[in-house]
């Protein structure tokens, strides 16, 4: 099993959700984040003073999947989040050793979905 963590542009979340849905990946967790990457981004102005917004608003998505789902999950995220512009984001895949469904105590691959 893998834990897939992706950082995307906030306004792309709905598209990504849509794509994941189409790929039958229904279970995700989302958090708010600030990201700093290649994208230097717009600069806000506040009373005429530039704010180096080198920390831009991002959305962090976490998805635990079985190994056979990894590819399609990545594809779905890219399909939803890709614009070709700097700032599109990253996907990180880390090993997931165990999953437990709190409600049923089920563990392993059955507990993921």
């Amino acid at each position, binding site marked *: 099993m893998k834990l897939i963590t992706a950082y995307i542009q*906030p*306004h792309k*979340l*709905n598209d990504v959700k849509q794509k994941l849905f189409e790929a039958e990946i229904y279970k995700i967790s*989302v958090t*708010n984040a600030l990201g700093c990457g290649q994208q230097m981004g*717009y*600069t*806000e*102005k*506040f009373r005429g003073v530039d704010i180096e917004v080198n920390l831009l*608003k991002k*959305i962090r998505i976490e998805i635990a999947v079985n190994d056979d789902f990894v590819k399609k999950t990545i594809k779905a995220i890219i399909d939803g989040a890709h614009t070709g512009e700097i700032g599109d984001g990253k996907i990180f895949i880390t090993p997931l050793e165990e999953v437990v469904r709190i409600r049923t105590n089920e563990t392993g691959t059955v507990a993921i979905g």
Partner: protein
Amino acid sequence: MKKRALTVLVVLLSLMVFPAIVSAQEAEYVTKADLDGITTMLWLVVAGALVFLMQAGFAMVEVGLTRSKNAVNILMKNLMDFAVGALAFFAVGWGLMYGASSGGWFGTSEFFLNIPTEEWANKMRDWFFQVVFAATAATIVSGAVAERIKFGSYLIYSVFISAIVYPVAGHWIWNAEGFLAVKGFHDFAGSTVVHSVGGWAALVGAVVLGPRLGKYVKVDGKIISKAFPGHNLTLAALGVFILWFGWYGFNAGSTLNGSSADIGHIAVTTTLGASAGAVAAMILSWIWFKKPDVSMTMNGALAGLVSITAPTFAVSPTSAIIIGLIGGILVVLSVEFFDKVLHIDDPVGAISVHGICGVWGTLAVGLFAEPDRIRQGTAGLFMGGDATQLGVQALGVGMVFGWVVVTMGAVFLLLKAVKFLRVSKKEEQQGLDINEHGADAYHGFQIFSNM
């Protein structure tokens, strides 16, 4: 002997007469006319200030009921529609509204407050009281076009409504020589003049702009309306309280007379109308949606206020309650109708609150006006009168609807034609604050602003 008699008489008379004269000299008495001038000056400036504060109320309601990513834009709109509107009303609006009437259709003098010295003091007072009403009509629209209109085009709209559209409609009804005024059209504080004008402009704006991205989605053939919840209902509620507060200046100030004995009556009908509106909307939403809906209830209070604005002077407290109740029910039905049936996207319900309830309030005069209270016009249908007044009211409603739809329609369509009306898809997704103003309303707060 006679001499003495005379002397006595003179002395006697002097005693009777002189004191009066003397006192009359040292301490001159106040005439009713002087007094009315003085009280009216105080009353209209205080009431006008309350109406001004309604700008804050509208700003809070609109910002609270929309998404955080567009907050700054809405605040700028509410601040600037007053600022540019006031300058426009100074230059053109006032003249068109209260200048010498050309056939009852529009005014033709007093542009740029070009006013003779002897009328100066009172005209200044009246201009101030009127400009805040003009601003109210203008700002009603900002909620309906929120989250997608370009800031620049909103400013252009603001100038038009404050300089021309509102003043001309106002001339018809509130200028003594206005063609509706002479017909006996009764709109005491502006259900039609202010609220319907704003409401219809909001309608036109919302239609021409089209809905916000993702507001109406087609799911297997059927169009579904999605909700975009407001980001701060606390401020929205604060806005409702501020509006209600300001409404006492709006309605009671419309006596235009600080010595009026009717000010109390108006405060009462205003209070009861608003309360009844809130109660009715709350109950209906409770039955319909299973839970008492906060934004419907708040709209209900505003609906009650708009509904009682025209009849506030002429109806009894009991009628005020009935009018408010119906207003509260109307607003819920209307919001649902525009959203679910017509699919016209009005983020804050401005069309329903101000347009629809403005009409209802205006017609209510024709139904509930007390024979002994209505000065301009005749008793209402349910109060022993006939349908005459109702007819006149309906005529006014229709005329104003036509005028606003045509003129504002032209403005918005023109702006659309030159591609200046609406922000781009991406700007709308990211929010107008970043793109239109380069600002973040709640810096540092973690917000799912894409929602």
